[in-house]
């Protein structure tokens, strides 16, 4: 119900399909109350009707779903969601409707569903848990659901930096930001609400003799005028992390009609030299019987609806409290013209502060009204009084919002006077607390404390605070409270409204010896809902303390973890959907390959063509076979630019390479290339590749595509950490050069058409390298081969890559060859027994590869010492061999294991494993590479080839890894 003289409700929205109107800027909770909607949700476990309990982000009950379809937004707190034109909100966790919810049957059988019920009830039979019990429980208990469709909502993330981060824009936060800003500090003021002012917006307090709103407006104007102050409203700081890093969630588009181009949320990482926590305090409820009915609202919430939004949450409001805020609420209600049914103050000596009925020393012991409160029973020492009311405002006192001070393992301290936990100083390095979150509850105290803290911080950071900040005159009412946690009586007394945990659950936990607060929490699930027990932790702790006969400090406290409010994973991972997940690296020939309809395969971040289909070909195998034949018989062209290329220069370049490679490069002649093997320090193979000597002090190393980054890091490690005395520089040139393999018997003929260099066998022998012109462009030519054929790799500056690839491919086609992709490249190298990272998988030694002779004993190198350890060589090692299928109609598979023919094919009997397989069109058979125990001594044996995963069980023959042209004659032709 709207109070007189409030702005007109002009914004149209719906709740469960019913059209309603809201005042611009108000929250959904406010608008629902204004439209007389009290019952807005069903509870998590028992499906109890629930209403709106707070006016802030701590709301445990009023969770709704916004929108429908793929981009549905579940579990939105109605107290945070601002209404916009066209907003469609829906209740959740109820079927078929909010009012008639089938699952409300849970409430009737609640005695069987207490704390730990599923640990006890669903123990047997074991298999039933996963298949039956858990799915059923999950369906019955829960909050809103996702659409299970691809959600295209736009989220973003951002980085922020400042000298001083002020967390919270209430009176303390405004004062702190003003003081730090005036001193010249770079300030970010992050405030959860849409409007600055905090609790002052909900009170009728005066500052400097005028309504507090005037002071807020003047202060905000002053802050907005400062270029060094950034005000971030609708921004909740959700976590405190190491070295002054804070996470914050900004609600960018939630308050506006959905737009495709505007992010819904932005997840900020803010780095602050210092931070001032001015997060205020949260009012707590009292555990009395059936304290969860719609219409029972925290007193501070009632004041917010009345004073800030002009909405009366009921026509007859009773107030129940244990501190002066109960009276403040009653006075405000009267001032707004709302009937106060009674004020029930549990303190015996309480005095009325206005014209209302006061029941001092009374407690609410019963409530009625299933879908909305209709009345309460108040018990005093002498009588029970029935009071008719449709709203009950409750105030059990205030808990400082110290959550962030716990994020780095800080433990709060119990304050007897406040009956609340207060933060421990220095719990988060660089962060101080001021105002209500520090236990300073009066406005004057908040302003003073915040100004002093901010001035001290500014001075620490080297700013000159010219004059002492002027503290405006404000409310100094003391906070007087007599703790009241629990009211006895018949019915459940709810503690954790969001997870449906009540007093008896905590008592049961204690009875079953879960007396540690951490155990109680996990056993009852108290505090484990998305609200992290903001309204319930302290009360639950007090109840636990009571039933275990300990004081609250003795009982301890649970601490809070990030995030302070729920954060969508979509916000934290913003930008990472689809192709945003990782950078895409494209070769210069990418467009040309796509133009030839080549399917792409990912190699690390790179995209490489699998094969180049031609008309008439229906399978990749056909294309692959044809491309292999190009290389074996004519000429093929393949983009190999993705291989890492590293420039190694300097007077000590040769010494450096001798140390990182097992073999020797100082002896490599100018204009020649050598294959090199690189070990990790533990003796296993890291990578392989060729290195060319382009000058006395200048080499260019190639790495595999997969290990390019790792090798670069390794070289820098050796250069800076292990051998800082060596005068050598390394630089990646992978991106500078577009490099193409031109392979096959007619490769020389093809290349003769693009370079004027003499590339005859005599002038440019196998493993020769050097600078050449490529159609007038300075390029490089390497006579190296990964196919075993006469082959070259030709490199040009990347700007010409696209052009050269098209040219080479066209020429090859004219000669009867053409482009080949990764599939053919793989076949060609398996036929020749050349290794890739399928073979060098991190467990393999040079010995295993048959390359032990490449580990020079004449010099020290990385991995040499450890490679010599027992167990890294010898007949017990699995050594690389080739395998050929014996029967023609079976496909081999990588990942298969090898067994003796008579042995059972179980793990312990495995003699080896298969790393690469292919159909070899050259040899017309299925072949592969494998690692076989003592393999080199077993050439010619017939073994069982078993792949349980793919249902393959066949025989294969062990052969030498080089299955084609074993003498290597073709490459030298």
């Amino acid at each position: 119900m709207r109070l007189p003289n409030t702005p007109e409700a002009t914004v149209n929205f719906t709740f469960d399909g019913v059209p309603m109107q809201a005042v611009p800027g108000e929250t959904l909770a406010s608008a629902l109350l204004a439209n007389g909607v009290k019952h807005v949700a069903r509870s998590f476990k028992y499906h109890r009707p629930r209403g709106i309990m707070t006016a802030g982000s701590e709301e445990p009950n009023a969770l709704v779903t916004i929108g429908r379809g793929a981009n549905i937004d579940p579990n939105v707190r109605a107290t945070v969601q601002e209404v916009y034109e066209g907003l469609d909100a829906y209740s959740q966790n109820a079927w078929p409707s909010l009012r008639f919810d089938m699952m409300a049957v849970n409430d009737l059988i609640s005695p069987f569903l207490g704390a730990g019920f599923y640990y006890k009830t669903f123990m047997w039979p074991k298999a039933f848990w996963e298949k039956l019990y858990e799915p059923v429980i999950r369906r019955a208990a829960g909050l809103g659901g996702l659409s299970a469709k691809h959600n295209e909502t736009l989220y973003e993330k951002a980085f922020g930096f400042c000298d001083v981060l002020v967390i919270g824009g209430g009176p303390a936060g405004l004062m702190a930001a003003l003081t730090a800003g005036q001193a010249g500090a770079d300030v970010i003021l992050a405030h959860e609400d849409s409007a600055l002012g905090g609790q002052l917006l909900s009170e009728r307090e005066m500052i400097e003799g005028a309504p507090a709103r005037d002071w807020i407006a003047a202060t905000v104007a002053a802050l907005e005028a400062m270029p060094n102050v950034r005000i971030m409203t609708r921004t909740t700081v959700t976590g405190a992390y190491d070295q002054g890093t804070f996470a914050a969630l900004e609600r960018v588009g939630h308050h506006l009609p959905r737009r495709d181009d505007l992010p819904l949320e932005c997840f900020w990482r803010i780095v602050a030299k210092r931070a001032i926590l001015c997060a205020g305090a949260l009012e707590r409820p009292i555990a009395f019987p059936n304290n969860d009915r719609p219409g029972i609202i925290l007193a501070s919430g009632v004041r917010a609806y009345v004073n800030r939004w002009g909405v009366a949450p009921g026509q007859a409001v009773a107030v129940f409290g244990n501190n002066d805020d109960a009276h403040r609420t009653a006075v405000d209600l009267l001032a707004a013209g709302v009937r106060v049914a009674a004020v029930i103050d549990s303190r015996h000596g309480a005095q009325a502060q206005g014209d209302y009925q006061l029941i001092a020393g009374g407690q609410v012991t019963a409530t009625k009204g299933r879908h909305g409160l209709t009345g309460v029973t108040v018990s005093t020492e002498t009588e029970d009084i029935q009071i008719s009311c449709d709203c009950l405002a409750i105030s059990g006192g205030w808990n400082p919002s110290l959550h962030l001070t716990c994020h780095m393992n800080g433990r709060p301290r119990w304050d007897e006077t406040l009956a609340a936990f207060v933060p421990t100083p220095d719990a988060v390095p660089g962060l101080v607390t001021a105002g209500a979150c520090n236990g300073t509850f009066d406005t004057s105290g908040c302003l003073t404390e915040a100004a002093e803290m901010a001035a001290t911080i500014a001075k620490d950071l080297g700013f000159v605070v010219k004059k002492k900040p002027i503290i405006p005159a404000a409310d100094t009412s003391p906070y007087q409270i007599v703790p009241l946690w629990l009211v006895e009586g018949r019915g459940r007394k709810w503690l954790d409204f969001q997870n449906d945990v009540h007093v008896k659950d905590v008592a049961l936990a204690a009875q079953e010896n879960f007396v540690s607060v951490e155990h109680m929490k996990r056993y009852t699930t108290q505090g484990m809902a998305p609200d992290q027990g903001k309204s319930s932790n302290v009360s639950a702790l007090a109840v636990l303390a009571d039933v275990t006969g300990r004081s609250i400090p003795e009982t301890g406290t649970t601490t809070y973890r990030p995030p302070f409010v729920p954060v969508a994973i979509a916000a934290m991972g913003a930008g990472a959907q689809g192709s945003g997940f990782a950078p895409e690296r494209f070769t210069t020939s990418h467009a040309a390959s796509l133009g030839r309809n080549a399917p792409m395969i990912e190699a690390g971040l790179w995209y490489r063509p699998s094969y180049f289909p031609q008309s008439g070909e229906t399978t990749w195998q056909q294309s692959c076979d044809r491309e292999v034949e190009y290389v074996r018989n004519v000429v093929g062209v393949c983009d190999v630019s993705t291989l890492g290329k590293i420039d190694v220069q300097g007077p000590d370049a040769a010494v450096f390479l001798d140390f990182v490679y097992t073999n020797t490069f100082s002896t490599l002649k100018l204009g020649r290339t050598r294959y090199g093997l690189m070990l990790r320090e533990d003796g296993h193979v890291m990578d392989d590749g060729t290195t060319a000597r382009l000058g006395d002090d200048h080499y260019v190393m190639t790495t595999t595509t997969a290990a390019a980054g790792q090798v670069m890091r390794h070289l820098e490690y050796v250069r800076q950490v292990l051998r800082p005395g060596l005068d050598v520089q390394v630089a990646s040139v992978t991106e500078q050069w577009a490099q193409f393999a031109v392979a096959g018997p007619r490769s020389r003929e093809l290349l003769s058409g693009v370079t004027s260099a003499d590339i005859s066998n005599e002038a440019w022998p196998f493993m020769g390298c050097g600078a050449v012109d490529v159609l007038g462009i300075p390029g490089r030519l390497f006579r190296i081969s990964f196919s075993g054929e006469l082959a070259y790799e030709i490199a040009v500056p990347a700007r010409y890559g696209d052009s050269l690839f098209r040219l080479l491919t066209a020429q090859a086609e004219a000669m009867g060859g053409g482009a080949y992709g990764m599939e053919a490249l793989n076949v060609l190298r398996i036929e020749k027994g050349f290794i890739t990272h399928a073979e060098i998988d991190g467990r393999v030694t040079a010995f295993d590869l048959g390359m032990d002779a490449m580990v020079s004993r004449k010099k020290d190198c990385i991995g040499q010492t450890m490679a010599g350890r027992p167990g890294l060589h010898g007949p017990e090692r699995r050594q690389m061999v080739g395998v050929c299928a014996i029967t023609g109609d079976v496909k081999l598979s990588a990942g298969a294991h090898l067994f003796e023919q008579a042995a059972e094919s179980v793990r312990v009997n495995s003699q080896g494993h298969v790393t690469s397989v292919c159909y070899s069109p050259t040899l017309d058979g299925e072949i592969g590479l494998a690692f076989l125990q003592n393999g080199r001594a077993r050439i010619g044996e017939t073994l069982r080839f078993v792949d349980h995963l793919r249902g393959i069980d066949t025989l294969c023959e062990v052969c030498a890894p080089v299955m084609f042209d074993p003498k290597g004659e073709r490459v030298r032709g």
Partner: protein
Amino acid sequence: MVKLIEKTPCAGLLPRSIGLMTLAEDAYPAMTSIAPYQGQSRQVSAALKSTFGVGFPSPNRSLLSDRVRITWIGQGAAMICGEAPPTLTGAAVTDQSDAWAVVRLTGKGAEDVLARLVPVDLRRPQFRSNHTARTLLGHMHVSITRIDAKTFEIMAMRSMAQTLVHELSQAMENVAARG
């Protein structure tokens, strides 16, 4: 004779204007990385200075002359952008003319765009003209230099040009959408 045709890293991708900002390719005719050998820094810097008028930059700085921009690109290394350097004996010299995609982001809001992608404070006065940073843009290793009050030069690996443009464009759209 057949001639090879040049293609810049961002060919077909840029320029594009979103909101008040423009993203354009800024391909230098030549880019050369130089890394002085031990004890040679002073001599190399002097040689650069006599040729170009500016020497070897200190960390996190870029130096501009009428012929070249020399930008610090990491420990002991700098990139000469614009012209190829003279023969330098005391340094590892590597042609990188084709290795980098170089773009310029200019306009009101450029700082906000980069704040969505880069974990470094690039606002003035922390990051003034000719300040440079080696850092990340999304997941990509980049070099970012402030050219003037509203312009940044961003260098990323050539193969990642498409991702670079995509990331920057998306952030530009996000910033523009906020108005």
